[in-house]
Protein backbone atom coordinates (compact mmCIF):
# COMPACT_ATOMS: atom_id res chain seq x y z
CA UNK A 1 0.00 0.00 0.00
CA UNK A 2 1.84 3.08 -1.16
CA UNK A 3 0.56 5.45 1.50
CA UNK A 4 2.91 8.06 2.80
CA UNK A 5 2.03 10.24 5.74
CA UNK A 6 3.90 13.08 7.36
CA UNK A 7 2.18 15.10 10.02
CA UNK A 8 3.72 17.42 12.58
CA UNK A 9 1.67 19.50 14.96
CA UNK A 10 2.32 21.65 18.00
CA UNK A 11 -1.33 21.76 19.08
CA UNK A 12 -0.60 19.52 22.05
CA UNK A 13 -3.58 17.24 21.43
CA UNK A 14 -4.28 14.49 18.92
CA UNK A 15 -1.52 13.93 16.41
CA UNK A 16 1.85 15.38 17.37
CA UNK A 17 4.32 13.72 15.06
CA UNK A 18 3.80 10.94 12.57
CA UNK A 19 5.97 10.14 9.59
CA UNK A 20 5.78 6.80 7.86
CA UNK A 21 5.41 5.16 4.50
CA UNK A 22 3.13 2.17 4.66
CA UNK A 23 4.35 -0.42 2.18
CA UNK A 24 2.65 -3.66 3.23
CA UNK A 25 -0.76 -4.50 1.72
CA UNK A 26 -2.24 -4.78 5.19
CA UNK A 27 -0.76 -2.57 7.89
CA UNK A 28 -1.72 -1.91 11.47
CA UNK A 29 -1.52 0.98 13.88
CA UNK A 30 -1.21 -0.13 17.48
CA UNK A 31 -1.53 1.99 20.57
CA UNK A 32 -3.56 2.56 23.72
CA UNK A 33 -6.82 4.46 23.51
CA UNK A 34 -6.28 8.19 23.32
CA UNK A 35 -2.96 7.89 21.49
CA UNK A 36 -4.30 9.55 18.35
CA UNK A 37 -5.11 6.49 16.24
CA UNK A 38 -8.63 7.55 15.34
CA UNK A 39 -7.47 11.09 14.64
CA UNK A 40 -4.92 9.60 12.25
CA UNK A 41 -7.59 7.62 10.38
CA UNK A 42 -9.98 10.57 10.21
CA UNK A 43 -7.18 12.76 8.91
CA UNK A 44 -6.34 10.19 6.24
CA UNK A 45 -9.93 9.92 5.04
CA UNK A 46 -10.47 13.68 5.16
CA UNK A 47 -13.19 13.74 7.80
CA UNK A 48 -10.98 15.83 10.00
CA UNK A 49 -8.31 18.41 9.40
CA UNK A 50 -6.40 18.89 12.63
CA UNK A 51 -4.26 21.94 13.12
CA UNK A 52 -0.77 21.06 12.00
CA UNK A 53 2.50 22.69 11.11
CA UNK A 54 3.37 20.07 8.51
CA UNK A 55 0.82 17.91 6.80
CA UNK A 56 1.31 15.75 3.76
CA UNK A 57 -0.56 12.61 2.76
CA UNK A 58 0.10 10.92 -0.56
CA UNK A 59 -1.61 7.76 -1.76
CA UNK A 60 -0.66 6.09 -5.05
CA UNK A 61 1.03 9.30 -6.25
CA UNK A 62 -2.12 11.33 -5.58
CA UNK A 63 -1.63 14.15 -3.11
CA UNK A 64 -4.54 14.10 -0.66
CA UNK A 65 -3.16 16.68 1.68
CA UNK A 66 -0.36 19.17 1.37
CA UNK A 67 -0.45 21.85 3.99
CA UNK A 68 2.33 23.87 2.36
CA UNK A 69 0.63 24.00 -1.04
CA UNK A 70 -2.84 24.42 0.38
CA UNK A 71 -4.07 21.10 -1.07
CA UNK A 72 -6.71 19.24 0.88
CA UNK A 73 -8.93 16.89 -1.11
CA UNK A 74 -12.44 16.55 0.32
CA UNK A 75 -13.36 13.09 1.66
CA UNK A 76 -15.42 12.25 -1.43
CA UNK A 77 -12.37 12.66 -3.67
CA UNK A 78 -10.06 10.35 -1.73
CA UNK A 79 -11.42 6.93 -2.68
CA UNK A 80 -11.23 5.52 0.82
CA UNK A 81 -13.55 3.17 2.60
CA UNK A 82 -13.70 4.08 6.26
CA UNK A 83 -15.18 1.63 8.74
CA UNK A 84 -15.48 3.59 11.97
CA UNK A 85 -15.67 1.96 15.37
CA UNK A 86 -19.31 2.94 15.84
CA UNK A 87 -20.10 1.71 12.29
CA UNK A 88 -22.28 4.74 11.40
CA UNK A 89 -24.82 2.88 9.29
CA UNK A 90 -27.61 5.03 7.87
CA UNK A 91 -30.54 4.34 10.22
CA UNK A 92 -33.22 5.26 7.67
CA UNK A 93 -32.04 2.76 5.08
CA UNK A 94 -32.24 -0.99 4.81
CA UNK A 95 -29.01 -2.95 4.85
CA UNK A 96 -29.30 -3.26 1.07
CA UNK A 97 -29.52 0.51 0.66
CA UNK A 98 -26.70 1.02 3.12
CA UNK A 99 -24.49 -1.31 1.11
CA UNK A 100 -25.20 0.68 -2.06
CA UNK A 101 -24.61 4.11 -0.48
CA UNK A 102 -21.35 4.52 -2.36
CA UNK A 103 -22.31 2.84 -5.62
CA UNK A 104 -22.13 6.08 -7.58
CA UNK A 105 -18.39 6.23 -7.16
CA UNK A 106 -17.97 2.55 -7.99
CA UNK A 107 -20.04 3.05 -11.15
CA UNK A 108 -17.98 6.09 -12.12
CA UNK A 109 -14.85 3.94 -11.80
CA UNK A 110 -16.39 1.49 -14.22
CA UNK A 111 -16.89 -1.23 -11.62
CA UNK A 112 -19.63 -3.79 -12.00
CA UNK A 113 -21.55 -2.85 -8.87
CA UNK A 114 -23.83 -5.86 -9.10
CA UNK A 115 -21.01 -8.39 -8.96
CA UNK A 116 -19.15 -6.27 -6.39
CA UNK A 117 -22.28 -6.40 -4.24
CA UNK A 118 -22.60 -10.15 -4.74
CA UNK A 119 -18.96 -10.71 -3.80
CA UNK A 120 -19.29 -8.62 -0.66
CA UNK A 121 -22.58 -10.22 0.36
CA UNK A 122 -21.03 -13.68 -0.08
CA UNK A 123 -17.75 -12.90 1.64
CA UNK A 124 -19.40 -11.21 4.60
CA UNK A 125 -22.45 -13.51 4.79
CA UNK A 126 -24.93 -10.67 4.53
CA UNK A 127 -27.54 -12.45 2.40
CA UNK A 128 -30.09 -12.84 5.18
CA UNK A 129 -29.71 -9.29 6.43
CA UNK A 130 -30.41 -7.29 3.28
CA UNK A 131 -34.02 -6.42 4.11
CA UNK A 132 -33.36 -5.40 7.72
CA UNK A 133 -32.78 -2.01 9.24
CA UNK A 134 -29.53 -1.31 11.10
CA UNK A 135 -31.28 -1.22 14.48
CA UNK A 136 -32.31 -4.82 13.92
CA UNK A 137 -28.69 -5.99 13.66
CA UNK A 138 -26.18 -7.13 16.26
CA UNK A 139 -22.85 -5.36 16.66
CA UNK A 140 -21.01 -7.91 14.58
CA UNK A 141 -23.57 -7.78 11.81
CA UNK A 142 -23.43 -3.99 11.72
CA UNK A 143 -19.70 -4.17 11.44
CA UNK A 144 -19.91 -6.48 8.46
CA UNK A 145 -22.44 -4.20 6.77
CA UNK A 146 -20.17 -1.19 7.31
CA UNK A 147 -17.31 -3.19 5.82
CA UNK A 148 -19.44 -4.22 2.84
CA UNK A 149 -20.57 -0.64 2.28
CA UNK A 150 -16.95 0.51 2.13
CA UNK A 151 -16.03 -2.28 -0.31
CA UNK A 152 -18.95 -1.66 -2.66
CA UNK A 153 -18.07 2.03 -2.89
CA UNK A 154 -15.02 1.02 -4.93
CA UNK A 155 -12.61 2.09 -2.19
CA UNK A 156 -8.94 1.85 -3.07
CA UNK A 157 -7.91 1.85 0.58
CA UNK A 158 -9.80 0.46 3.57
CA UNK A 159 -9.43 2.14 6.94
CA UNK A 160 -10.66 0.06 9.86
CA UNK A 161 -11.00 1.56 13.31
CA UNK A 162 -10.86 -1.05 16.08
CA UNK A 163 -12.70 -3.79 14.18
CA UNK A 164 -12.93 -5.96 17.30
CA UNK A 165 -13.59 -3.40 19.98
CA UNK A 166 -17.33 -3.00 19.62
CA UNK A 167 -18.08 -6.72 19.58
CA UNK A 168 -19.01 -9.01 22.42
CA UNK A 169 -16.05 -10.69 24.00
CA UNK A 170 -17.18 -14.12 22.87
CA UNK A 171 -17.75 -13.09 19.29
CA UNK A 172 -15.03 -10.58 18.74
CA UNK A 173 -12.58 -12.84 16.94
CA UNK A 174 -15.25 -13.95 14.48
CA UNK A 175 -14.68 -10.85 12.37
CA UNK A 176 -11.08 -11.87 11.67
CA UNK A 177 -11.90 -14.64 9.16
CA UNK A 178 -14.17 -12.16 7.36
CA UNK A 179 -11.36 -9.66 7.16
CA UNK A 180 -9.06 -12.35 5.81
CA UNK A 181 -11.67 -13.27 3.25
CA UNK A 182 -11.84 -9.60 2.22
CA UNK A 183 -8.10 -9.42 2.05
CA UNK A 184 -8.01 -12.37 -0.34
CA UNK A 185 -11.11 -11.62 -2.45
CA UNK A 186 -10.83 -7.89 -2.94
CA UNK A 187 -7.10 -7.29 -2.61
CA UNK A 188 -7.74 -3.79 -1.29
CA UNK A 189 -4.97 -2.41 0.91
CA UNK A 190 -6.06 -2.06 4.51
CA UNK A 191 -4.95 0.08 7.40
CA UNK A 192 -6.20 -1.32 10.70
CA UNK A 193 -6.13 0.58 13.94
CA UNK A 194 -6.32 -1.38 17.17
CA UNK A 195 -5.29 -1.58 20.77
CA UNK A 196 -5.36 -5.37 20.63
CA UNK A 197 -2.28 -7.16 19.34
CA UNK A 198 -4.14 -10.33 18.36
CA UNK A 199 -6.03 -8.91 15.40
CA UNK A 200 -3.00 -7.04 14.12
CA UNK A 201 -0.91 -10.20 14.33
CA UNK A 202 -3.59 -12.18 12.55
CA UNK A 203 -4.04 -9.72 9.71
CA UNK A 204 -1.12 -7.35 9.26
CA UNK A 205 2.24 -7.60 7.58
CA UNK A 206 3.48 -4.42 9.19
CA UNK A 207 2.65 -2.63 12.43
CA UNK A 208 3.45 0.85 13.68
CA UNK A 209 3.10 1.80 17.32
CA UNK A 210 1.68 5.13 18.43
CA UNK A 211 2.13 6.73 21.80
CA UNK A 212 0.68 10.09 22.77
CA UNK A 213 0.22 11.21 19.22
CA UNK A 214 3.68 10.12 18.10
CA UNK A 215 4.99 7.27 16.03
CA UNK A 216 6.96 5.24 18.58
CA UNK A 217 7.97 2.07 16.77
CA UNK A 218 7.49 -0.03 13.66
CA UNK A 219 8.20 -3.49 12.33
CA UNK A 220 6.62 -6.87 11.71
CA UNK A 221 3.80 -7.67 14.16
CA UNK A 222 5.69 -10.37 16.04
CA UNK A 223 8.81 -8.24 16.29
CA UNK A 224 6.92 -5.26 17.56
CA UNK A 225 4.89 -7.10 20.17
CA UNK A 226 7.87 -9.03 21.48
CA UNK A 227 9.78 -5.83 22.15
CA UNK A 228 10.41 -5.37 25.81
CA UNK A 229 8.49 -2.08 26.38
CA UNK A 230 5.48 -3.18 24.36
CA UNK A 231 5.41 -6.76 25.62
CA UNK A 232 5.51 -5.59 29.21
CA UNK A 233 2.59 -3.26 28.63
CA UNK A 234 0.31 -5.91 27.11
CA UNK A 235 -2.58 -6.29 29.48
CA UNK A 236 -3.43 -9.91 28.83
CA UNK A 237 0.07 -11.01 27.98
CA UNK A 238 1.36 -11.94 24.56
CA UNK A 239 -0.77 -14.21 22.43
CA UNK A 240 0.72 -16.38 19.72
CA UNK A 241 -1.54 -16.23 16.68
CA UNK A 242 -1.36 -19.37 14.55
CA UNK A 243 -3.33 -20.92 11.74
CA UNK A 244 -4.32 -24.53 11.84
CA UNK A 245 -5.96 -26.95 9.43
CA UNK A 246 -8.32 -29.48 10.95
CA UNK A 247 -7.07 -33.04 10.43
CA UNK A 248 -9.40 -35.14 12.53
CA UNK A 249 -11.36 -35.14 15.73
CA UNK A 250 -12.44 -37.46 18.52
CA UNK A 251 -15.16 -37.09 21.14
CA UNK A 252 -13.17 -34.57 23.11
CA UNK A 253 -10.23 -33.40 21.02
CA UNK A 254 -9.59 -31.96 17.59
CA UNK A 255 -6.26 -32.43 15.85
CA UNK A 256 -4.92 -29.65 13.64
CA UNK A 257 -1.78 -29.15 11.64
CA UNK A 258 -0.18 -25.77 12.35
CA UNK A 259 0.65 -23.38 9.53
CA UNK A 260 1.11 -25.84 6.72
CA UNK A 261 -1.65 -28.30 5.93
CA UNK A 262 0.90 -31.00 5.00
CA UNK A 263 4.18 -30.35 6.76
CA UNK A 264 2.97 -28.49 9.82
CA UNK A 265 3.33 -29.94 13.31
CA UNK A 266 0.18 -31.46 14.79
CA UNK A 267 -1.52 -30.06 17.87
CA UNK A 268 -4.51 -31.22 19.82
CA UNK A 269 -7.09 -28.77 21.07
CA UNK A 270 -10.41 -29.09 22.87
CA UNK A 271 -12.95 -30.36 20.37
CA UNK A 272 -14.21 -27.81 17.84
CA UNK A 273 -17.01 -28.53 15.42
CA UNK A 274 -15.26 -27.88 12.16
CA UNK A 275 -14.99 -30.36 9.30
CA UNK A 276 -11.63 -31.84 8.41
CA UNK A 277 -9.66 -29.57 6.09
CA UNK A 278 -11.11 -26.30 7.32
CA UNK A 279 -8.89 -23.53 8.53
CA UNK A 280 -8.99 -22.12 12.04
CA UNK A 281 -7.30 -19.32 13.90
CA UNK A 282 -5.61 -20.35 17.14
CA UNK A 283 -4.59 -18.11 19.97
CA UNK A 284 -2.10 -19.32 22.53
CA UNK A 285 -0.94 -17.21 25.44
CA UNK A 286 2.82 -17.20 25.89
CA UNK A 287 2.65 -17.76 29.63
CA UNK A 288 0.55 -20.91 29.28
CA UNK A 289 3.44 -22.81 27.69
CA UNK A 290 5.87 -24.98 29.64
CA UNK A 291 9.32 -25.92 28.37
CA UNK A 292 10.96 -29.30 28.85
CA UNK A 293 14.50 -30.20 27.85
CA UNK A 294 13.68 -33.90 27.56
CA UNK A 295 10.57 -35.70 26.38
CA UNK A 296 8.07 -36.04 29.20
CA UNK A 297 6.24 -39.32 28.88
CA UNK A 298 3.57 -39.31 31.54
CA UNK A 299 1.93 -35.92 31.68
CA UNK A 300 -1.66 -34.85 31.29
CA UNK A 301 -0.92 -32.04 28.82
CA UNK A 302 -1.84 -33.32 25.35
CA UNK A 303 0.77 -31.40 23.39
CA UNK A 304 4.51 -31.98 23.62
CA UNK A 305 5.91 -30.27 20.58
CA UNK A 306 9.56 -30.73 19.66
CA UNK A 307 11.00 -27.33 18.76
CA UNK A 308 14.18 -25.32 18.49
CA UNK A 309 14.99 -22.06 20.27
CA UNK A 310 15.59 -19.31 17.76
CA UNK A 311 15.79 -16.36 20.08
CA UNK A 312 15.88 -15.45 23.77
CA UNK A 313 14.61 -12.03 24.75
CA UNK A 314 15.48 -10.91 28.25
CA UNK A 315 12.89 -8.73 29.92
CA UNK A 316 12.88 -7.54 33.49
CA UNK A 317 11.63 -10.54 35.54
CA UNK A 318 10.91 -12.73 32.53
CA UNK A 319 12.40 -14.24 29.43
CA UNK A 320 10.61 -14.71 26.11
CA UNK A 321 11.76 -17.89 24.44
CA UNK A 322 11.02 -17.77 20.73
CA UNK A 323 10.91 -21.24 19.23
CA UNK A 324 10.37 -22.81 15.86
CA UNK A 325 8.18 -25.88 15.99
CA UNK A 326 8.97 -28.88 13.79
CA UNK A 327 10.22 -28.27 10.28
CA UNK A 328 7.73 -25.57 9.38
CA UNK A 329 9.43 -22.19 9.15
CA UNK A 330 6.24 -20.27 9.88
CA UNK A 331 5.40 -22.22 13.03
CA UNK A 332 6.97 -19.77 15.44
CA UNK A 333 5.75 -19.90 19.03
CA UNK A 334 6.90 -17.61 21.84
CA UNK A 335 6.83 -18.89 25.41
CA UNK A 336 7.28 -16.84 28.53
CA UNK A 337 9.38 -18.27 31.38
CA UNK A 338 11.28 -16.92 34.37
CA UNK A 339 15.00 -16.09 34.20
CA UNK A 340 15.38 -18.74 36.88
CA UNK A 341 14.02 -21.44 34.59
CA UNK A 342 16.33 -20.34 31.79
CA UNK A 343 19.30 -20.68 34.16
CA UNK A 344 18.40 -24.05 35.59
CA UNK A 345 17.59 -25.56 32.18
CA UNK A 346 20.57 -23.74 30.67
CA UNK A 347 18.54 -22.65 27.66
CA UNK A 348 20.48 -21.25 24.70
CA UNK A 349 19.65 -20.29 21.16
CA UNK A 350 19.77 -23.42 18.98
CA UNK A 351 18.79 -25.79 21.79
CA UNK A 352 16.00 -28.28 21.22
CA UNK A 353 13.11 -28.05 23.69
CA UNK A 354 9.66 -29.55 24.01
CA UNK A 355 6.73 -27.17 24.30
CA UNK A 356 4.25 -28.63 26.77
CA UNK A 357 0.79 -27.20 26.13
CA UNK A 358 -2.60 -28.23 27.47
CA UNK A 359 -5.24 -28.75 24.80
CA UNK A 360 -7.51 -26.13 26.35
CA UNK A 361 -4.78 -23.49 26.34
CA UNK A 362 -5.52 -23.01 22.65
CA UNK A 363 -8.35 -20.60 21.96
CA UNK A 364 -9.88 -21.47 18.63
CA UNK A 365 -11.79 -19.01 16.47
CA UNK A 366 -13.80 -20.66 13.73
Amino acid at each position, binding site marked *: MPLSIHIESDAGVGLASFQHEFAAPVAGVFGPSGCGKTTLLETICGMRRPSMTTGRIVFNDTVWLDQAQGICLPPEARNVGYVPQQHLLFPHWLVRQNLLAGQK*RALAQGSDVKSLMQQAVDALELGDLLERYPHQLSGGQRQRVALGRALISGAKLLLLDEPLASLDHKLRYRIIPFLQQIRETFQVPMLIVSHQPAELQALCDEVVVMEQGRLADKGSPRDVFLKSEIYSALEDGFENILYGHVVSYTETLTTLKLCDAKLGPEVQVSRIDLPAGSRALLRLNAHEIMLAKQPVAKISARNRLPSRIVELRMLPNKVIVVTQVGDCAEAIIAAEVTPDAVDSLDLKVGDGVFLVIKSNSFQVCR
Partner: protein
Amino acid sequence: MEPIINVILSTLAWASLASLIVFLLGTPLAYWMARYDFIGKRALIAISSLPLVLPPTAVGYLLLLLLADRGLLGRETLGFSLDILLTWKGVVLAYCVMSFPLYLRTARVSFEAVDPGLESINRTLGNSRLATFFAVTLPLAKRGLAAGIILSFTRAMGEFGATIMVAANIPGKTQTLASAIYSAQQSGDDTRANILLMVAIALGFILVYLTEWLAQPKRFTNSHASNYATVHPH
Protein backbone atom coordinates in the same frame (compact mmCIF):
# COMPACT_ATOMS: atom_id res chain seq x y z
CA MET B 1 -70.17 41.13 4.10
CA GLU B 2 -67.34 38.84 3.08
CA PRO B 3 -68.51 35.19 2.91
CA ILE B 4 -66.98 33.10 5.70
CA ILE B 5 -65.57 30.56 3.25
CA ASN B 6 -63.58 33.30 1.51
CA VAL B 7 -62.10 34.44 4.81
CA ILE B 8 -61.06 30.88 5.64
CA LEU B 9 -59.63 30.12 2.21
CA SER B 10 -57.62 33.33 1.96
CA THR B 11 -56.25 32.86 5.47
CA LEU B 12 -55.22 29.28 4.61
CA ALA B 13 -53.64 30.44 1.35
CA TRP B 14 -51.68 33.26 3.01
CA ALA B 15 -50.53 31.02 5.85
CA SER B 16 -49.45 28.34 3.36
CA LEU B 17 -47.50 30.84 1.29
CA ALA B 18 -45.86 32.23 4.43
CA SER B 19 -44.95 28.70 5.59
CA LEU B 20 -43.39 27.94 2.20
CA ILE B 21 -41.28 31.10 2.34
CA VAL B 22 -40.28 30.34 5.95
CA PHE B 23 -39.35 26.78 4.95
CA LEU B 24 -37.20 27.86 2.00
CA LEU B 25 -35.36 30.56 3.93
CA GLY B 26 -35.28 28.87 7.32
CA THR B 27 -34.06 25.39 6.34
CA PRO B 28 -30.62 26.36 5.02
CA LEU B 29 -30.16 28.91 7.79
CA ALA B 30 -31.12 26.36 10.45
CA TYR B 31 -28.69 23.82 8.98
CA TRP B 32 -25.92 26.37 8.89
CA MET B 33 -26.58 27.33 12.49
CA ALA B 34 -26.71 23.68 13.59
CA ARG B 35 -23.42 22.69 11.94
CA TYR B 36 -21.13 25.69 12.10
CA ASP B 37 -19.89 27.94 14.84
CA PHE B 38 -19.32 31.52 13.87
CA ILE B 39 -18.85 34.85 15.56
CA GLY B 40 -22.19 36.38 16.46
CA LYS B 41 -24.08 33.08 16.35
CA ARG B 42 -25.71 33.74 19.73
CA ALA B 43 -26.62 37.28 18.71
CA LEU B 44 -28.17 35.98 15.49
CA ILE B 45 -30.18 33.39 17.43
CA ALA B 46 -31.36 36.10 19.83
CA ILE B 47 -32.34 38.52 17.06
CA SER B 48 -34.16 35.85 15.08
CA SER B 49 -36.03 34.82 18.22
CA LEU B 50 -37.19 38.34 19.09
CA PRO B 51 -40.62 38.07 17.42
CA LEU B 52 -41.35 35.20 19.83
CA VAL B 53 -41.01 37.43 22.87
CA LEU B 54 -42.05 40.89 21.65
CA PRO B 55 -45.70 41.96 21.60
CA PRO B 56 -46.94 41.25 18.05
CA THR B 57 -48.05 44.84 17.74
CA ALA B 58 -44.48 45.94 18.43
CA VAL B 59 -43.23 43.75 15.58
CA GLY B 60 -46.02 45.10 13.36
CA TYR B 61 -45.10 48.65 14.24
CA LEU B 62 -41.44 47.95 13.45
CA LEU B 63 -42.43 46.58 10.03
CA LEU B 64 -44.60 49.63 9.52
CA LEU B 65 -41.63 51.91 10.27
CA LEU B 66 -39.44 49.95 7.84
CA LEU B 67 -42.02 50.06 5.06
CA ALA B 68 -43.23 53.61 5.57
CA ASP B 69 -42.42 56.07 2.76
CA ARG B 70 -39.26 57.24 4.50
CA GLY B 71 -38.39 53.91 6.11
CA LEU B 72 -35.40 51.70 5.21
CA LEU B 73 -37.54 49.76 2.74
CA GLY B 74 -39.86 52.66 1.90
CA ARG B 75 -40.67 54.29 -1.42
CA GLU B 76 -38.39 57.29 -0.96
CA THR B 77 -35.39 55.19 0.05
CA LEU B 78 -35.72 52.50 -2.62
CA GLY B 79 -36.98 54.76 -5.36
CA PHE B 80 -40.03 52.55 -5.94
CA SER B 81 -42.81 51.14 -3.79
CA LEU B 82 -42.87 47.53 -2.64
CA ASP B 83 -46.61 48.00 -2.27
CA ILE B 84 -46.87 45.83 0.82
CA LEU B 85 -48.71 47.95 3.36
CA LEU B 86 -52.45 47.43 3.49
CA THR B 87 -52.34 44.59 0.92
CA TRP B 88 -52.40 40.79 1.20
CA LYS B 89 -48.61 40.92 0.84
CA GLY B 90 -48.56 42.71 4.17
CA VAL B 91 -50.48 39.82 5.72
CA VAL B 92 -47.98 37.29 4.34
CA LEU B 93 -45.05 39.42 5.51
CA ALA B 94 -46.46 39.64 9.04
CA TYR B 95 -47.13 35.89 9.02
CA CYS B 96 -43.56 35.16 7.86
CA VAL B 97 -41.89 37.39 10.42
CA MET B 98 -43.98 36.06 13.30
CA SER B 99 -43.59 32.35 12.46
CA PHE B 100 -39.99 32.34 11.23
CA PRO B 101 -38.34 32.05 14.67
CA LEU B 102 -40.56 29.14 15.61
CA TYR B 103 -39.55 27.20 12.50
CA LEU B 104 -35.88 28.18 12.74
CA ARG B 105 -35.68 26.89 16.30
CA THR B 106 -37.39 23.56 15.59
CA ALA B 107 -35.39 23.00 12.41
CA ARG B 108 -32.09 23.81 14.08
CA VAL B 109 -32.78 21.32 16.88
CA SER B 110 -33.79 18.68 14.31
CA PHE B 111 -30.55 19.14 12.38
CA GLU B 112 -28.50 19.08 15.57
CA ALA B 113 -30.03 15.68 16.34
CA VAL B 114 -28.59 14.20 13.13
CA ASP B 115 -25.16 12.68 13.82
CA PRO B 116 -22.61 14.67 11.78
CA GLY B 117 -20.60 11.43 11.57
CA LEU B 118 -23.27 10.03 9.25
CA GLU B 119 -22.74 12.97 6.92
CA SER B 120 -18.96 12.55 7.00
CA ILE B 121 -19.14 8.83 6.35
CA ASN B 122 -21.43 9.39 3.38
CA ARG B 123 -18.87 11.76 1.95
CA THR B 124 -16.06 9.23 2.35
CA LEU B 125 -18.25 6.97 0.19
CA GLY B 126 -17.79 9.43 -2.65
CA ASN B 127 -20.90 11.58 -2.27
CA SER B 128 -20.74 15.37 -2.38
CA ARG B 129 -21.78 17.66 0.45
CA LEU B 130 -25.01 18.61 -1.33
CA ALA B 131 -25.92 15.02 -2.24
CA THR B 132 -25.27 14.08 1.39
CA PHE B 133 -27.61 16.80 2.62
CA PHE B 134 -30.46 15.48 0.49
CA ALA B 135 -29.74 11.77 0.99
CA VAL B 136 -28.87 11.66 4.66
CA THR B 137 -29.48 14.88 6.59
CA LEU B 138 -32.87 15.89 5.23
CA PRO B 139 -34.52 12.44 5.52
CA LEU B 140 -33.26 12.05 9.09
CA ALA B 141 -34.47 15.51 10.10
CA LYS B 142 -37.71 15.46 8.11
CA ARG B 143 -40.11 14.72 10.96
CA GLY B 144 -38.74 17.60 12.98
CA LEU B 145 -38.87 19.89 9.96
CA ALA B 146 -42.46 18.88 9.25
CA ALA B 147 -43.42 19.54 12.86
CA GLY B 148 -41.70 22.93 12.61
CA ILE B 149 -43.59 23.84 9.44
CA ILE B 150 -46.93 22.93 11.00
CA LEU B 151 -46.05 24.92 14.10
CA SER B 152 -45.19 27.96 12.03
CA PHE B 153 -48.37 27.48 10.00
CA THR B 154 -50.51 27.48 13.16
CA ARG B 155 -48.63 30.50 14.44
CA ALA B 156 -49.44 32.30 11.19
CA MET B 157 -53.11 31.28 11.36
CA GLY B 158 -53.39 32.79 14.83
CA GLU B 159 -51.49 35.94 14.01
CA PHE B 160 -53.44 39.15 14.74
CA GLY B 161 -51.37 41.98 16.20
CA ALA B 162 -48.68 42.35 13.58
CA THR B 163 -51.12 41.77 10.73
CA ILE B 164 -53.45 44.51 11.95
CA MET B 165 -50.54 46.98 12.04
CA VAL B 166 -49.16 46.15 8.60
CA ALA B 167 -52.20 45.13 6.58
CA ALA B 168 -55.11 46.38 8.68
CA ASN B 169 -58.45 44.53 8.63
CA ILE B 170 -60.02 45.28 5.27
CA PRO B 171 -62.89 42.87 4.48
CA GLY B 172 -62.37 41.17 1.14
CA LYS B 173 -58.80 42.42 0.97
CA THR B 174 -56.74 41.78 4.09
CA GLN B 175 -59.21 40.32 6.54
CA THR B 176 -58.01 37.07 8.13
CA LEU B 177 -59.69 34.46 10.32
CA ALA B 178 -58.34 36.20 13.41
CA SER B 179 -59.37 39.72 12.42
CA ALA B 180 -62.75 38.50 11.11
CA ILE B 181 -63.57 37.07 14.56
CA TYR B 182 -62.62 40.41 16.07
CA SER B 183 -64.81 42.36 13.60
CA ALA B 184 -67.79 40.03 14.00
CA GLN B 185 -67.65 40.22 17.77
CA GLN B 186 -67.23 44.00 17.75
CA SER B 187 -70.18 44.49 15.41
CA GLY B 188 -72.38 42.16 17.50
CA ASP B 189 -72.70 39.49 14.80
CA ASP B 190 -72.54 36.57 17.26
CA THR B 191 -73.51 33.88 14.73
CA ARG B 192 -70.66 34.82 12.41
CA ALA B 193 -68.23 35.06 15.34
CA ASN B 194 -69.32 31.62 16.62
CA ILE B 195 -68.92 29.93 13.24
CA LEU B 196 -65.47 31.45 12.80
CA LEU B 197 -64.57 30.33 16.32
CA MET B 198 -65.62 26.74 15.54
CA VAL B 199 -63.54 26.74 12.37
CA ALA B 200 -60.52 28.09 14.27
CA ILE B 201 -60.88 25.43 16.97
CA ALA B 202 -61.21 22.61 14.44
CA LEU B 203 -58.22 23.73 12.37
CA GLY B 204 -56.12 24.30 15.47
CA PHE B 205 -56.95 20.87 16.87
CA ILE B 206 -56.04 19.04 13.67
CA LEU B 207 -52.75 20.87 13.33
CA VAL B 208 -51.66 20.47 16.94
CA TYR B 209 -52.63 16.78 16.81
CA LEU B 210 -50.46 16.36 13.72
CA THR B 211 -47.55 18.10 15.40
CA GLU B 212 -47.82 15.86 18.44
CA TRP B 213 -47.80 12.81 16.21
CA LEU B 214 -44.73 14.08 14.38
CA ALA B 215 -42.98 14.99 17.62
CA GLN B 216 -42.80 11.33 18.58
CA PRO B 217 -40.58 10.22 15.74
CA LYS B 218 -39.92 6.65 14.81
CA ARG B 219 -36.72 6.15 16.75
CA PHE B 220 -33.75 4.66 14.96
CA THR B 221 -31.80 3.53 17.98
CA ASN B 222 -28.48 1.82 18.00
CA SER B 223 -29.46 -0.43 20.85
CA HIS B 224 -30.57 -3.93 20.10
CA ALA B 225 -34.24 -4.59 19.79
CA SER B 226 -35.35 -6.05 23.09
CA ASN B 227 -36.28 -9.37 21.56
CA TYR B 228 -33.13 -9.46 19.52
CA ALA B 229 -31.52 -12.44 21.19
CA THR B 230 -34.42 -14.76 20.58
CA VAL B 231 -35.37 -13.59 17.10
CA HIS B 232 -32.06 -12.99 15.39
CA PRO B 233 -29.27 -15.27 16.57
CA HIS B 234 -25.89 -13.97 15.53
